[in-house]
């Protein structure tokens, strides 16, 4: 490994200015768990790492807006999010999913913003947050914008974030009236990265599905929203046949990929099972107040 410099800006603007460069060896460094792995394997050779912990306090806070939506500073560690009573109250699915996300040490170090910006399709948070209709705030040289989590990923380890653009916040709207579930399927040891992640959110009114959000990850190249499956659910009764139709649609629209965790064909079969089970479990779990 070659020497590199580690710079510590004290403001967001300063950080963005440092990152707005053509030098591919310059990267933002928050928890560092993902980046360190890339550096150790030689996938990434840094010239300069821009530490974000100097701008931490204002960008690591967790709070609730007047409309009941949750705001998580992008520099909050996953552990902070996991153990936050506020998060537990607004979106209990997040801490539930955290329990088996990577491991305790990674969660202690990794930041929620860095976790999303890494673009790894095997992560648990993207499908969970997307199912919860979450969005992120991004600030870059050209200003600030809001991006839905489901639109954040451009491909395998790729996001839509531009040069010098940093995530500052994750916003999760109030989940009142919604029931949500995340199921991950590992096919090797239990602590493996998932072969498949399925997150669903349902809003049921008088036994009829008024609205739903279905996300698949890990089995596909990037986080994918299953829109035709959602269409199958809209206005339908909450019964096994409905869920099976949605699962059929999910399998038809999700482009699963082969990897060491299983063949594409097998993952499509798993997707069918997991969509049905996730819908069933969301229904039996019931909506948040």
């Amino acid at each position, binding site marked *: *490994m*070659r020497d590199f410099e580690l710079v510590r800006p004290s403001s967001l603007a300063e950080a963005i200015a440092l990152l707005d460069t053509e030098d591919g060896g310059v990267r933002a460094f928050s928890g560092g768990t993902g980046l360190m792995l890339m550096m150790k394997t*030689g996938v990434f050779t840094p010239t300069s790492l821009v530490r974000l912990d100097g701008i931490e306090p204002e960008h690591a806070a967790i709070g609730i807006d007047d409309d009941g939506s949750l705001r998580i500073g992008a520099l909050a560690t996953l552990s902070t999010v996991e153990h936050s009573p506020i998060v537990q109250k607004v979106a209990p699915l997040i801490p539930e999913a955290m329990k088996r996300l990577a491991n305790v040490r990674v969660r202690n170090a990794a930041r929620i913003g860095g976790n999303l910006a890494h673009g790894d399709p095997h992560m648990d948070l993207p499908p969970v947050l997307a199912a919860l209709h979450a969005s992120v705030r991004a600030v870059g040289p050209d200003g600030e914008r809001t991006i839905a989590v489901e639109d954040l990923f451009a491909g395998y380890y790729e996001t839509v974030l531009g040069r010098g653009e940093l995530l500052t916040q994750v916003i999760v709207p109030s989940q009142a009236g919604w029931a949500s579930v995340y199921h991950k*399927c590992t*096919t*090797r*040891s*239990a*602590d*493996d*990265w998932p072969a498949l992640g399925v997150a669903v959110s349902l809003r049921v009114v008088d036994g009829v599905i008024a609205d739903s959000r279905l996300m698949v990850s890990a089995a596909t190249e990037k986080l994918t929203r299953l829109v035709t499956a959602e269409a199958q659910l809209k206005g339908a009764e909450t019964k096994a046949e409905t869920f099976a139709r949605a699962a059929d649609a999910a399998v038809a629209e999700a482009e699963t990929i082969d990897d*060491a965790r*299983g*063949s594409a064909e*097998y993952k499509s*079969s*798993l997707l069918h*099972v997991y969509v049905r089970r996730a819908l069933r479990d969301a229904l039996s779990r019931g909506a948040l107040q």
Partner: protein
Amino acid sequence: MTLVKPMPAGQVGRSVPRLEARQKVTGRTDYTHNLTIPGMLHVKVFRSTTAHGRIVSIDTTAAGALPGVHSVITGEDIRKVVPEPYYGPAFHDQPVLALDKVRHVGEPVAVVLAEDPYVAAEAVQLIVAEYEDLEPVFDEVEAMTSKAIVHDALKPAGTFADLKHVAAHRNTNIALDYHLRRGDTSAAFAAADHVYEHEFRSQQVMHTPLEPMVSLAEPGDGIMTIHTASQSPSFVRTEIARLFGWPENRVRVKVPHLGGGFGAKLYIKLEALVACLALMVRRPVKLSLTMEEQFYTITKHATTFRIKSAVTSNGVVTARHCEVFWNGGAYADIGPRVTQKSGFTAPGPYDIENVSIDSYALYTNRPPAGALRGFGIPQLVWAYESHTDLIARDLGIDPLELRRRNILKDGRPHATGTLMQDAAIELVLECIAERMQWSAPFDRGTGTVLRGRGIAIGFKASISPTTSVAIVNIAADGSTNLYMSTVDMGQGSDTAMAQIVAETLGIETETIRVVRPDTDVTPYDMATLGSRSTFHMGNAVKMAATHAKEQLAEMAASLGLTPGTNYQTSDLFKKKFGMQAGNVIGVGTFIPSYKSPDLATGLSENVTPFWMIGGTGVEVEVDTETGHVRILRMVNAADLGRPLNPKIVETQLSGAAVMQLGFTLTEKMEMDGGQVTNASLADYKIPGLHDVPLVMENHIVQANQHSGPYGAKGVGESATFGVSPAIANAIHDAVGVRLTELPLTPEAVFRALHAASKD
């Protein structure tokens, strides 16, 4: 778990905490991993990216020019110092660094030495090698007949008495073939009510000791000291002395505690390389492998096992033919010995009149394979116990009952002709059956989650003939040291051996200090492998302690003290030497008797000094929609004679079973053109806490190894034997499909279910 009555002195049979426990929980254990020596250079290895090729050129110019690099060394440089730089326990086939040819991806081709390991690693990236690709062979069955020849000529080492017949053949990938012929199998097959024939395959896996392999060589004035995480310090000394053409006493091998071994750190691995480098650069040289590099260093044999049985209508096996192909990879390591030593147990622990075995060690262009916790036995049990279950199912006989009808009883001859002695096969089987409540009704589950259960038993011969030597040294104050070269890699040998000394001398185990292996100090031991230490070294230690005790008694007699009167050991020394001075040194040397199998028939009336027996029963739950298998309950049982330390024994049993669980369900080295595509713990998944069966029991059956020290024998491998077939049998029981290839992944179960539903 069975309760054991301690021996009279109260030391053997007691669950003494490990003597080194405090060091281990405080992080102060002295692993080679931690060792640094002033002036030391770090080595990083440039490895082949080609599975099979002739070396055309190696360009080290850029690497050598990188600031901070001390030197770059290739195989040709080594050859200038050591003219025949090939090593190995069975064959002298492995070059210290590749010469002329590369034979597997990951083979060491050149090294960089630097004070900063990061600089060495960066310089390695700058080395460029060019190869002329040769056709590779990866599959063990194809290697039998392939045109691709891994080694132009075979180079047997002749180190082992029982491999003396390995001749120098050309144009073959068969490193060793072992054949056994007993009775008349052809006639038995012709006369059989039923003939069953199956093929089973097992995958290549890696030991992944958490302390990755590491060796450090320190040159001195006409001597070479090697600090190494090795399971066989005596062998390393012999082999380095041979390579250098030196007498053994100029090579010193020191081994502290090991962070796991499991067979990975056996014989000679990195030691030849660091020793040659230290000789050349005249500075201490340390090579620490990364987890990834371990996958290219030593692995467990993948196998193909074709098994065929003649069976009567009432389930008696009258003949069995076994054909086993062992994928040894590019270098033989100890593979030929596995082929023979394990090969002769291939028919299983059953009393079969007519047996034939053909067992082949094969060279391929995969990373080398050697010993891994069981020395080939788990691969064999996987096949014969799956086969046993299939026979039982077809005949409509309960699988437990079929085993009872065929089981090999004490006093009956094994396939080799050796009579079974102190082999509690029946007890192990019945213990599992009882704990599983085999005859009671069983809940088979409903809907998409179905349940099943399976059992399997296996056995293993000890390697032989091998020697262990021990020294017990009693100081003038009566305190005692034990000197031996058995390596404690976590199995608790220091503690168990100290218990033997303590029992013999009638002192407290905790007062004994065990001296770490150091070939300048501790005497010869063949190696710490194959569950041999408790028996072989245990006997040597007991002899050494007895020898010391006899000398104390003689001393007492010569001083006019009568036995049974009230005197301390220290009184003897004071009285004899006039002050606190002198030593009593007891020495014990143990080698069991043995008769090498006949070359033509494979038969021998004395093929092993003892037998190890192990078995497993499991209850599983199968998700028929996804293929996921959950182990609800696992019962392991073993015959290990009398347990010296019941608590350590139990940990050995459960640890072995969980390790084998990984080899059964998740672990597999994925290969692409000879490259391992999952050479890291991120992609090669070993069992974690969530993978351990919800309920796990470990049982020691009431047994006694009459020739063992205080009735004991080895245990480190026994609980691996039955795990894989027990699970496959349970899956079959639950959902009616049979898997014949390891690992038993959810996708494999799913596909089998899918295929079955189409039929």
